[in-house]
């Protein structure tokens, strides 16, 4: 099976070479047969990568301990579920997993647009084949997961070895969330390849109009959605597993996943300016280039050991390859931009400071500043060594100080932007749209302050959250009222109809509302408290309204680990609420241990209890309890963002005629509209 897998990958590499080279030849010669064969080669690459991935999965499931990679990351007692997750637990497997997810996107794109957009797709095929070749180089030659354990026999020949058992999976990864978090985050990372490929293809082929943006809108949203959910799941995993009481600490690895999300968010917004007004073409192309480069850079950051992080993959030789690839992509992007820059000229310029355009502009500007701040903070040790000769790192205060005001400004724009008119907004409409929400928001802030709120950022966050929520509700209400009065239905079905008529716009509002909840949840961290004490059985601890009583302590042997567990009764005002079981697990196979945090989560706050081990002095168990307000709102907000993204991905239910031809010209009636529809009515966001 290992031979099968490595041959599949080798064949994928060869097919990739053909898809790339043959694709270029096809573009030059414009021979239909060559175009077709290059596309088929591209699809074959994907299928072969699936086979390679499947065979690695098979090797894991069948406990093939002659494979170095399987030995390193699995063992016999590991549940099948985790044997699957173990595939991406190390460098080699995760790079193959990367190729695997990318190939799903690539196959879908090549298949969905087969025979369509003949001027664009050959270029797309070449670009994606180039990216796939880069990763296949790792899978085949630099970091193959199909290495066999072997040793040199006295005669000089290689002998292969079969180990009786493997080393087991890192306990930090033996957590259900860790099985879904990497696939989701990687789906985000890899997904940005698609808009990148289309943008570069459109530029290279001087593809007319903004059609590449319509073609990639959904792909970009899918990648963006995955990336966001991946980040949140990672935060949740850190919160629930690592046991330090928080969910985000601006670690390089976290930052690496945030950076492309920030530029991706900027891109999702600024394309609307291009669609509506033909502006920002250069900007958008570079935003999507940057986003793609950041996904590669993020992978580089986590694997090269450039930045000191306890999290990152072991230092390895693949770093220079990533840098080389980033450099190459940059050169390709820049040359194709420079040669085709006349094609990207803007149709319009900015008219007014109070307009939709300007809100997008500011949104983009500060998202980019946030991204630059995160990059420079992450790379501060490297940069300072270049500039001053000493390595200096910056910590959490740096990131918070700059990103909190940026976040609040973004929150403000979230409320204001969608309701501003294109070109110029009148005072009257400002008052009509924002007067009420602003007044109520400020009242909420005043009430909050009267109740003891003192933190400036938290108060601002509260005011803005109320303000944004009300503007969103008002938008739904106004639209639904019109539909309800016209169609004689009630308001609720009005809301549903409204949303389905313009999914992009109203899905966007739902996403915005989810973001508001996430902001509220984060602001709760200003009121975090924690307490740590030695607690022999029978001891008690009071934190906030909760009283913890340590009842019993036990140590048991379970499955592939030994568990030490405290049983803690929680009561509030004398009323028993819940039993919590904070736990420490020890995995003998690889001498690792893991912390199982016990969390009692309510909308108001999380009671987060960690068994921190024995006190070295007294040998008594140490319990560390945290009270983290509003954390649940972050996960709730994340779920709503997903819902909104799904809504925005859905097709509109009652599309206008012009809209249908513009969005899907080829599917609707290719013969009728050879050129893009004259009326630029695209779905959503008006």
């Amino acid at each position, binding site marked *: 099976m290992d031979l099968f897998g490595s041959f599949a990958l080798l064949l994928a590499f060869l097919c990739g070479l053909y898809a790339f080279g043959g694709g270029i030849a096809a573009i030059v010669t414009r021979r239909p047969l060559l175009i077709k064969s290059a596309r088929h080669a591209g699809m074959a690459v994907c299928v072969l990568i699936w086979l390679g991935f499947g065979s690695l999965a098979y090797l894991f499931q069948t406990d093939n301990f002659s494979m170095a990679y399987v030995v390193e990351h699995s063992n016999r007692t590991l549940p099948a579920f985790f044997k699957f997750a173990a595939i991406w637990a190390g*460098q080699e497997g995760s790079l193959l997993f990367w190729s695997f997810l990318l190939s799903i996107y690539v196959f879908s794109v090549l298949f969905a647009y087969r025979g369509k957009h003949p001027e664009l797709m050959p270029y797309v095929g070449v670009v994606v084949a180039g990216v796939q070749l880069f990763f296949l180089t790792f899978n085949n030659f630099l970091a193959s997961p199909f290495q066999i354990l072997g040793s040199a026999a006295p005669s000089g020949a290689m002998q292969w070895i079969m180990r009786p058992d493997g080393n087991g999976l890192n306990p930090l990864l033996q957590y259900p969330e860790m099985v879904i978090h990497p696939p989701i985050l990687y789906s985000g990372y890899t997904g940005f390849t698609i808009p990148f490929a289309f943008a570069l293809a459109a530029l290279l082929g001087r593809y007319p109009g903004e059609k590449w943006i319509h073609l990639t809108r959904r792909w970009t949203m899918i990648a963006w959605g995955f990336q966001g959910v991946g980040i949140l799941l990672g935060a949740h995993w850190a919160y629930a597993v*690592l046991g330090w009481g928080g969910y985000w600490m601006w670690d390089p690895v976290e930052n690496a996943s945030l950076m492309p999300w920030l530029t991706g968010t900027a891109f999702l917004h600024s394309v609307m300016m291009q669609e509506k007004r033909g502006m920002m073409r250069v900007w958008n192309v570079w935003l999507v280039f940057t986003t793609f480069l950041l996904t590669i850079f*993020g992978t580089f950051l986590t694997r090269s050991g450039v930045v000191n992080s306890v999290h990152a993959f072991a230092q390895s030789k693949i770093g220079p390859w990533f840098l080389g690839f980033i450099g190459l992509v940059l050169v390709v992007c820049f040359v194709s931009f420079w040669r085709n820059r006349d094609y990207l000229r803007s149709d319009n310029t900015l008219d007014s400071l109070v307009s939709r355009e300007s809100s997008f502009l500011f949104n983009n500007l*500060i998202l980019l500043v946030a991204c630059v701040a995160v990059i420079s903070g992450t790379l501060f040790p490297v940069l300072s060594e270049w500039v001053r000769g000493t390595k200096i790192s910056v*910590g959490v205060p*740096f990131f918070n100080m700059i990103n909190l005001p940026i976040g609040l400004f973004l929150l403000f724009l979230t409320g204001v932007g969608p309701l501003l008119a294109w070109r110029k907004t009148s005072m009257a409409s400002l008052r009509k749209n924002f007067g009420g929400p602003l007044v109520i928001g400020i009242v909420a802030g005043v009430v909050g302050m009267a109740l003891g709120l003192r933190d400036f950022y938290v108060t601002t966050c509260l005011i803005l959250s109320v303000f944004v929520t009300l503007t969103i509700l008002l938008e739904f209400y106004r639209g639904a009222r019109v539909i309800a009065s016209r169609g004689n239905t009630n308001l609720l079905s009005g809301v549903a109809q409204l949303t389905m008529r313009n999914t992009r716009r109203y899905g966007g509002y739902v996403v915005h509302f989810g973001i508001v909840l996430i902001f509220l949840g984060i602001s709760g*961290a200003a009121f975090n408290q924690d307490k740590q004490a030695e607690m022999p059985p029978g001891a008690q601890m009071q934190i906030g309204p909760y009283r913890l009583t340590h009842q019993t302590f036990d140590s048991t042997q379970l499955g592939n680990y030994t568990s030490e567990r405290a049983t803690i009764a929680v009561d509030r005002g004398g009323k028993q609420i819940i039993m919590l079981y904070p736990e420490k697990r020890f995995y003998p196979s690889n001498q690792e241990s893991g912390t199982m945090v016990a969390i009692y989560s309510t909308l108001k706050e999380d009671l987060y209890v960690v068994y921190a081990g024995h006190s070295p*002095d007294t040998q008594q168990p140490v319990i560390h309890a945290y009270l983290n307000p509003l954390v649940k709102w972050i996960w709730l907000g994340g779920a709503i963002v997903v819902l909104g993204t799904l809504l925005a991905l859905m097709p509109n239910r009652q599309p206008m005629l012009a809209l249908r031809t513009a969005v899907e010209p080829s599917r609707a009636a290719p013969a009728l509209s050879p050129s893009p529809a004259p009326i630029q009515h695209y779905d959503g966001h008006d």
Partner: protein
Amino acid sequence: MKAKTKFGIGIGIILISLSALAWMGAKQSQTYYHTIAELSSLNASAMHQRIRVGGDVAAGSIQHLPGRVDFVLKEEGKTLPVSYVGSDPLPDTFKDGAQCLIEGHAMPDGRFVAEQLQAKCASKYEAAPGGTESSQPASNSDRKS
């Protein structure tokens, strides 16, 4: 005033105020990286800096004392006596031979007082899949505020 000028001013204000914040944040939290070899040659002013040092925990050197944990960090033949006084419990991964990152201050007597400590096993430890917030066995008192 033309729209473009207004934009220029607006963007300028945003960028300047954010850079000021970034500068303040950097000043507040900057930590100097040094190797153990460099520590001995630092001048007096560097004693006030927050310093980060990395190395391996010398086998058998960990001593649990009331209120602190003493151990010896070694790197490329040099050794550094360390007292960990942080409030967080030691991570599970902190043991003999572990790779260790400490943050704190160098004392005039050559001892290093660490307030933060992160450790990972020296053995075949590869943490979580890339691009994830993986192993944070670290005790870290920084918290999002």
